[in-house]
């Protein structure tokens, strides 16, 4: 799809979230909710004593899985799969350059995910919750965050070219 059309579509979805629910889109919070659920299931005492996790637990008796962002990300999964199926783009594969083994590419993906989680946790959001949502609301911290994402990415991109060429 033309990127500007896709952008308008995405912008209207974001606007709908603002108008209907009074919050924007996000993704990271869904991961936090699952971690909070997992830790509180395995070690409830430990979860209550960890302030970061406790922040996602809510009231006693309410499952941390009853999270707005987790439902939204479940929808994201369904919507992406629907679009992919329509376009014939769903297939089991690993995206990588020709000179990289699948094993190395998957290790890089894992490492990137770990770093991403740390960055998003520190920043209180990722490209969705901060850059996109906060960007549209002219949130000062979100704009600072967004500039730094591009700065960090461009600063190191050269050193990871080998993954793709």
């Amino acid at each position, binding site marked *: 799809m033309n990127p500007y059309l896709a952008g308008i579509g*995405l912008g209207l979805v974001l606007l*709908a979230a603002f108008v209907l629910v009074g919050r924007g889109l996000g993704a990271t919070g869904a991961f936090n909710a699952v971690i909070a659920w997992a830790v509180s299931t395995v070690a409830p005492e430990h979860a209550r004593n960890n302030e970061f996790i406790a922040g996602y637990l809510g009231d006693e008796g309410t499952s941390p899985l009853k999270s707005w962002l987790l439902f939204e990300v479940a929808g994201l999964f369904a919507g992406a799969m629907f679009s992919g199926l329509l376009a014939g783009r769903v297939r089991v594969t690993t995206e990588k350059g020709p000179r990289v083994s699948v094993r190395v590419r998957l290790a890089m993906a894992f490492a990137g995910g770990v770093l991403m989680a740390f960055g998003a946790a520190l920043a209180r959001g990722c490209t969705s919750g901060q850059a996109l949502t906060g960007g549209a609301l002219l949130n000062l911290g979100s704009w600072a965050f967004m500039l730094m994402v591009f700065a960090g990415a461009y600063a190191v991109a050269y050193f990871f070219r080998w993954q793709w060429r």
Partner: protein
Amino acid sequence: MAMMAPFFKYGMFGDEASLVLAFLIGIGFGFFLERAGFGSARKLVSQFYLNDLAVFKVMFTAIVTAMLGVTYLGWIGWLDLSLVYLVPTHLAPQVVGGLILGVGFVIGGYCPGTSVAATATGRLDGLIYVLGIFAGMFAFAELYPLLKGFYLSGDGVGLTIPGTFGLPYGVVVFAVVLMAVGGFYGAGLLEKKFAAPGE
């Protein structure tokens, strides 16, 4: 017109209905991410090698669309923008977090939302990336006592650019639109210059 939005904050429906809406809104989110080609790490990282700037184009078109929407609906007095959740501002951790996230984006090829879209369309690297996020988030939570001081630094009030710099809201909106349009033009030039071989 009477103020009536955000509907949820005006009590037009409850928590359960808001979760149903979350799922429906998510479908739209995922649909347009995948339509834009963002279920593919190769497409996403092309942004950082300058041969395909779709990430910038889609992101800024979406930001401008939603920004103009809330500005207009606020201006006609239909949407109370002060009731829309603003992530609290903690500049230092947001700047450092942004840098780390940018590096993670390049190394892993995705961001959290796009990794879910990639997983939904069968990308194993997307799935492994998702597992990496879980591992990283768990590690962050366990290390939180050490990181708490930095995480909470700053006053933590949701600040906006117009509010902070004492500028009229409309002026900042206009500046962002101009910047986006300039960026779209520049993006086209960069893509021509850095076109991937064989394209």
